[in-house]
Structure formats: structure tokens, C-alpha cells
């Protein structure tokens, strides 16, 4: 690994996205609009908005980065770009970290906007600080990126890659406790939810925006998210070679 290669890879990814201002605009605007939509939907029920909206600020980057990475990586594979990069003197770790840094930076901007709108303009409460939500959001973004990178190896077309979003992300979103508390779910659903990384991401966010003091359960959540990210990056590294198509 070298800082030079990682940096150059990250710059290239950002450079690519810079050429596509519409994608940047969508990334930055859509989560904010959705959050505002929730605000109006739950206008008479501020508790519900707090319960869903506050953690959602930290989950948006996960969803968006998963989607963007899985499609961007699929393109890199099918266009021969990834293979061209891999025939250069770069270690695989440099490529992966380069992507991580670039997408992490985008996630940071996205998070800053969503958190500002949510916690300042729309009056959401972050008991333990909006900065903590923002940090968790960036961690989730990197997790989403790592998962997206991994699953991109199994898509042959962009249509398939887009379908991975409902296939991989929606079940996690439904089971993570955002809509229905997990202890109210059927036992087998709870059991499944224990296996899904988004469950821990959500739990950490719920604790960060909830009233209880932060304890070891919060730390455990964060550790699981970080661990799942490292595991996904490892799987991503194993499948990086796959050419697809």
C-alpha cells in the first residue's frame, strides 16, 4: 500500500463524479427532500418523526453509497477500467481504500447537508450531538460502499445492479427496527435481523438520538458496523478480480 496510489485512485473516482454534476446534485438533494417529506407526513406527530427521521439522517448515506458504488463498480468492470487500473503497480488495498476515501468524502458532504436540515431546520433532536450522528452516517456510508463493491461482482448489467438495492438494502431497512421495534417482531425475524449489519447501524443511531445515556451496547453496535465494513471490504478484495460480462 502507498499513500500515493491510494490518493491517486481516490482523486480519480472524485474526478469521474465531478464530470457528472447531475449525480452529485441528486445525491445531495434527494435525501434532504425525503426527510422534508417525512416531516410533512408526520406533521401532527413529532414523536414519530423524531423516531424515524433522526436515525434516517444516518441511514441515507448507507443506501445512497450502496447504490452508487454497486453501479459505479459495475461500470469500472465492464468498461475495462478496473482491469486497466489493476495492471498498474497498485496493490488491491490501494484501489479499495481509494474508493473508500472518495466515497467517504462524498458521504461526508451529503451527511452534513442532511444533518443540517434535519437537526437545525426541521427540529430533530440529537441528544448526544448531531456530530455523533454525522460520524455514524459516514461509517454507514463506508459500510454501504463496501457492500456495494462486493455485490457489484455478481451483477452483469446495470439493471441487475439496481435490483440489488431492493434485494440487499430494503430487507435490512425493514428488519432493522426503523419501522417496527425489533422486540415486537416475530422471533425468526428478530433472529434474522441479528445477522444484518444495518440492524446495528440503526441501533447505534437510535441510541445516539435517543434519551438514554450511551453505554457499552452503543459501543458494541459501532464495533459491529466497523467489523462488517472490514469484512465486506475483504470480500470486495477477493472479488475485485472478477471481470463480469
Amino acid at each position, binding site marked *: 500500500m502507498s499513500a500515493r496510489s491510494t490518493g491517486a485512485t481516490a482523486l480519480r473516482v472524485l474526478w469521474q463524479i465531478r464530470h457528472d454534476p447531475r449525480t452529485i446534485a441528486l445525491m445531495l438533494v434527494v435525501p434532504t427532500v425525503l426527510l422534508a417529506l417525512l416531516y410533512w407526513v408526520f406533521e401532527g406527530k413529532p414523536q414519530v418523526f423524531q423516531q424515524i427521521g433522526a436515525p434516517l439522517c444516518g441511514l441515507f448515506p448507507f443506501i445512497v453509497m450502496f447504490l452508487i458504488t454497486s453501479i459505479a463498480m459495475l461500470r469500472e468492470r465492464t468498461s*475495462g477500467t478496473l482491469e486497466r487500473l489493476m495492471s498498474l503497480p497498485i496493490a488491491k488495498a490501494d484501489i479499495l481504500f481509494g474508493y473508500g476515501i472518495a466515497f467517504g468524502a462524498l458521504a461526508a458532504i451529503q451527511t452534513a447537508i442532511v444533518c443540517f436540515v434535519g437537526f437545525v431546520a426541521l427540529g430533530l433532536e440529537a441528544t448526544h450531538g448531531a456530530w455523533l450522528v454525522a460520524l455514524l452516517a459516514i461509517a454507514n456510508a463506508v459500510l454501504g460502499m463496501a457492500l456495494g463493491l462486493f455485490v457489484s461482482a455478481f451483477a452483469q448489467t446495470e439493471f441487475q445492479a439496481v435490483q440489488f438495492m431492493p434485494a440487499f438494502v430494503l430487507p435490512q431497512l425493514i428488519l432493522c427496527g426503523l419501522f417496527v421495534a425489533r422486540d415486537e417482531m416475530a422471533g425468526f425475524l428478530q433472529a434474522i435481523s441479528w445477522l444484518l449489519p444495518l440492524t446495528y447501524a440503526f441501533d447505534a443511531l437510535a441510541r445516539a438520538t435517543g434519551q438514554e445515556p450511551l453505554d457499552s451496547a452503543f459501543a458494541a453496535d459501532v464495533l459491529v458496523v466497523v467489523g462488517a465494513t472490514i469484512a465486506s471490504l475483504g470480500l470486495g478484495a477477493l472479488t475485485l*478480480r472478477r471481470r463480469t460480462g
Partner: protein
Amino acid sequence: MANASPVIETQGLTKRYGRHRGIDEVSFRVEPAEVFGFLGPNGAGKTTTIRTLLDLIRPTAGSARLFGLDSRRDSVAIRARLGNLPGEFGFGRGTGREAIELLARLRGVGRLDRADALADRFRADLDRPLAQLSRGNRQKIGLILAVFHEPELLILDEPTGGLDPLMQEEFLALVREERERGAAVFLSSHELDEVERVCDRVGIIREGRLIAVERVEEMLAKTQRHVSVEFAEPVAADALRDLPGVSELEVEGRRASFRLAGDVDPVLKAITAHRVTDLDFAHPTLEEVFLTYYRGEGDEQERSGTGGGG
């Protein structure tokens, strides 16, 4: 040169995908400052071999060493010393200049004068997005990316694809200059003509098997060419029939056509004993080269192993 350590050395390199495709027991060496042609039709396993050398895919069996280093364990160090032109490549949305700058950063090359000089020489358009360029113009950028850092080894996969004849000529000149500089070149091609003009030795691959490795002159000497001669006056067939290497002679009036293998000189001398009005010395096709080696294989029975493809 015989004792210098080879730049590329593969031993029994094998890659199987399912039952068909892939390569089977490919072993060869590329020496320093040598242009090695890797000749075969599309789908013969040329790109698979190259991707194995670059550690983009892992061989099912066998091994490859580049610069004496293991292709798998030391792949990053190896790739730092070579330049590569893939058959197909992309760089997303950027321009040629951006691609060069990226590679320069990654390779730690500070000066871009060689890249600029090459761009001038090949009249490459560095300022338009790569995706908008025609295949030939994109190929020019690919060539610059492969050689601008003065690598010790060039691995070029069908490098002249899409280039117009003038640029092909310029490119072959560049390959010769790279050899002068001391670089080894591994060049895959399905065009005999190209290999003949620039390569020192050639490996002939078909259906994943390397069927021969030879000096280019030897390959040409073994290969049969089509010769067609028109004389000023009708010539007796006997005058040509008994010459060494001549077969399938057909004489029609003033025109004689035949296949010729081996030494050209005696036949030429015999022909020019008469007044010649037209002479056509056709290059053998790739298919004819293969036939030559398959025939040889059958006669000598020296290469046992899998029984061909069928």
C-alpha cells in the same frame, strides 16, 4: 544472450474455464531486448495468457516468472517495471491527458515530455474524452500509456487494432526503437504480416496450446507461400516441377502457380531465366502457418498429449 536471465518465463501455464476456452500447458521464454510475437486467431488464448502474466487471473496450474519474480507473489513490483496495452480498455469519462496524468502519478513519473512527444508523433488527441474517440484514436492513447514511462517490458495485446496503415507503420517503428532501448516486447497478434515485420521470435498458439516457438525466419522458411508467375511466353511445366519446395504446380498457358516451401532463391533464379511479365508472391495466411505446424506435428509424432480439438 543465451545465458541472460529471461524477462518472461512461463512453465506449463494452464487456465481452464469450464471445459473449453483457456490455455493448456503454455511454456515459453522472452529474452531481454527481444520482440516476441504471440500469434494466434481470436479466442486462441492470447489474452488469457497476458492476463495471467499480469496476475489479473490466476492460473489453474503452472507458473510464470517476470524479471525473475513470481507473477503472483510479486505482481505489484512486476507491474511497476512493465507497460501494458490491453485489447480493450476504458478510463471512464476522462480525456487522454487526464489518463496520462493519472498513470504518471501512479507510476511516479514526474516528466511528461516523452508522453507529449509520442502524442505528437501519433497525432493523438489528448483533449477529447476517451469515450468519444474512435477505436484507432483510443488505441493511440493506449500506446502512449503503455510506453511513456520507459518500461523494461512491453506487453501489447493486438496493438495495431484500429490503426490506419500509416500509424501501424509508425507503431512498428516504435516497437523497434523500444527494442533498441533495451526493452523486451511481448506482442500478441492475429496478423502474420505484423509479426513478420517486427518480431524476432514467434510463439504460435491455437486452441489454447502453444504449437511452436521459433525464430520468425525459420517459421517463414517452413511455411508454404502461394506463387503465381506470368511469363512472356508459355513455359514448360517441367522447368518448375522439379525445383526444391515446389508443390501443387498448375500451368495454364503463360501463367504458372504453385506452392513454395523453404528456400526462395533457387526458384527465383529458375523463374528469372525466362522473361517474367508478372509475379505475385502471396504471404501465407495464418491458417496456412498452422497447417504447416500441424502437418509437422503429425509427421514427427513428437508432441503427444491432448488429441487436438476436433
